[in-house]
């Protein structure tokens, strides 16, 4: 065996080992579902009476719980269809990467409710949620297809810009927050889901 052949062999082995660790479930249905739920949440949020930070946090916690439950069911359905274990090593890695920033986001929400902070805090909380969600997605992106990291960056940049605007100018009309949440969370997921429908490689049915 020539040294350059050995080097090629090593490169192939490295690529295969990386592929083995990557999460391979189809993301298009999950992203689309989260997008629809997010947009519906944004629209419905404007119709519901939300006069306090507590109501805002609890409302979006419910929306997040619906999105998480749907995601869980969609992923579980895929694993059943493919006759593969649900709690596979890549699923475990992705979950472990997602959890810390999401827990911090939930903790901030609990603190806002617990301390009965004024409604004005919601804008800052929403911006922090965007940033933390971006961090979670970016961390999970190390074990998922490459586009996920860019998706994480999208939330980090958007969250950073919103934070900047809030610090510099405040937020005039607080009802805009539900639109912002629905538009950025829901709209981004829906757009990415549609993109994935056209680009994600269809896995063979088992």
């Amino acid at each position, binding site marked *: 065996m020539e040294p350059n052949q050995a080097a090629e062999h090593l490169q192939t*082995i490295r690529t295969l080992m990386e592929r*083995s660790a990557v999460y391979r479930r189809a993301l298009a249905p999950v992203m689309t579902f989260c997008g629809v739920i997010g947009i519906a949440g944004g629209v419905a949020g404007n119709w519901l009476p939300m006069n306090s930070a507590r109501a805002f946090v609890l409302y979006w916690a419910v929306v997040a719980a619906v999105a998480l439950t749907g995601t869980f069911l969609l992923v579980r359905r895929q694993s059943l269809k493919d006759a593969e274990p649900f709690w596979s090593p890549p699923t475990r890695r992705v979950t472990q990467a997602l959890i810390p920033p999401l827990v911090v986001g939930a903790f901030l929400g609990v603190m806002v409710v617990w301390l009965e902070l004024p409604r004005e805090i919601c804008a800052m909380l929403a911006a922090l949620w965007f940033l933390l969600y971006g961090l979670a997605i970016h961390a999970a992106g190390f074990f998922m297809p490459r586009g996920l990291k860019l998706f994480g960056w999208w939330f980090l940049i958007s969250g950073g810009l919103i934070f900047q605007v809030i610090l510099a100018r405040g937020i005039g009309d607080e009802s805009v927050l539900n639109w912002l949440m629905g538009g950025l969370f829901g709209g981004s997921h829906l757009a990415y889901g549609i993109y994935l429908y056209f680009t994600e490689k269809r896995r063979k049915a088992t």
Partner: protein
Amino acid sequence: MNPEPFLQLDRVIHEKGRLAIMSLLAASPALSFTELRDTLGMTDGNLTTHLRILQEEGFVALSKSYANKRPLTTCSLTAAGKKAFTGYIDLLEQIVRQNKPR
């Protein structure tokens, strides 16, 4: 060039299909038969043959169970498989190093 490292390469692992299987299993505690098949684009028969050879060598362990009333075959590397794979990588690296300009 010293041919010694090349002569020591494990013939069972050196085959392209089996090396691919070993590489995937080395990066994951266990993979299902379908995950291996889909990732490598192998046919059922081809993958079964390679797995049987690796199992006979003691490099791979197969466990059969049921998940939601459907048979589930899970594959993983044995301790001997991990050792053989690590040894194989070391030899490849040795071959690459041999020809590096000093």
